[in-house]
């Protein structure tokens, strides 16, 4: 049974800003984040009965948001090119950790996440975008803290490999552009 209009409005009023902020951190694009926020609430309303109460409403919404944002990231085209052009894009859309050099850390995580296993993608979002502690993540996903740590280590190792090849491609493109 779908929620009443009042129930839907209340869900939006209580969590709308939080979900939007989260989508914005993950997607780093205000328009995409707003579209994602609407999609999250639309799916929540459409699947109202799928909330079984084992997690809080916020956890439920956050998981829907994570799934949708990962899909958005997966669907994006020219991700590497976007990363290259990051310097020219407007700053400040993200609210995550401060910038390191010319490319923000979250840009790196976002860019390399696409090729990862779904569980690694999810851990990366919880750790770098939501800034959860490893303990909080362990509770959220039902793993031990050491296992969370190991999986994050796997993420970093794979990210290192992807980044290395990505930046090599960047150099090659730059050389070709000069020729």
């Amino acid at each position, binding site marked *: 049974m779908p929620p009443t209009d009042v129930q839907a*409005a209340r869900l939006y*009023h209580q969590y709308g800003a939080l979900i939007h902020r989260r989508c914005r951190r993950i997607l780093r694009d205000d328009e995409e984040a707003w579209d994602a926020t609407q999609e999250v609430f639309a799916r929540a*309303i459409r699947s109202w009965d799928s909330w079984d109460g084992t997690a809080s409403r916020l956890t439920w919404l956050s998981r829907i948001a994570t799934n949708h944002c990962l899909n958005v990231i997966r669907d994006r085209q020219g991700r590497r090119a976007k990363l290259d052009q990051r310097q020219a894009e407007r700053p400040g859309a993200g609210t995550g950790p401060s910038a390191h050099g010319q490319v923000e850390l979250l840009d790196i995580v976002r860019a390399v996440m696409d090729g990862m296993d779904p*569980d690694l993608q999810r851990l990366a979002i919880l750790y770098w975008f939501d*800034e959860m502690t490893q303990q909080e993540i362990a509770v959220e996903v039902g793993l031990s803290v050491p296992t969370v740590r190991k999986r994050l280590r796997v993420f970093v190792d794979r990210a290192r490999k992807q980044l290395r090849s990505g930046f090599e491609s960047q150099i090659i493109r730059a050389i070709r552009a000069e020729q």
Partner: protein
Amino acid sequence: MTTLDDETMDALERMLTRPDPPPGAPTPWTLERYIAGDLAAAEARAVGEALREDPDLAARVEALCADDAAFEAARPWDAVGAALLARAAALPESGRPDAVPDFDLLPRRSWSKALWLGTAGAAAILALVFLFAPQPPVDPTPAPNRYKSSDTLQGFVLVEGHAERIDAGARLVAGDRVQFRVSTPHGYLALLGVDGTGTVSRYLPVGGEQSAAFAPGNGVPLPDSLELDAAPGPEVFLAFLSDEPLLVEDLERAVHDVVQDAGSRGVLAEDWTAAGLAPQVSVFHVEKGD
């Protein structure tokens, strides 16, 4: 480029090994949950204490609240709700949109299952204890402005299914439904009312002799709305907030004494905080009549 690569990877590595916050210090995710009124009473109380002691933390929460306010101003439900509901209706059935992948990728030792079952059992017992504790359900309503002491008790009137914030002293009519949100670091709440005839009513706790456990936070909605009756004059609401449960009978008696001495409007003039009944007392009133 190679140097940048190394720098970013070093940053990634540093973040991977970033230390957890000190014990008791709220994490960023805890702050988000605090603002959303999503924490249990004890946890929210701890966050409230941490905010009082750490200006940087308080500033971060202020920034989050400012972002909330900007979102609500730019995209209020009244403006986007219809389109959002239509979008939901157009979606196909999707089963579990919150489905998560299988995290159990690594083999576990046999004893871990027993440990897990034991933990789950303890958690189930704790959950039962929590379920039967007098916790009011969190019922989302429009987010108010936050962090002003005058905003401790915020009133809303329900109009055609939507909650519209009202100022203290707003004129309403019998039959209007009023709802409240509370911003407080305290974990216990008693809500009393005094109508124009001087009758003292108890709204929270619904039952029991002590003030109700409450999930402290900012703009936390109270369960259910109150329908104004036809009694003439002002309707005054008093929220008594504390870190320990209070005997409601004591509060009712104190309010009744003030009504006896000074009438219903005397309740408005009373310095309730100075009366020492509770660490925090917030008063809100509406006027009834056309």
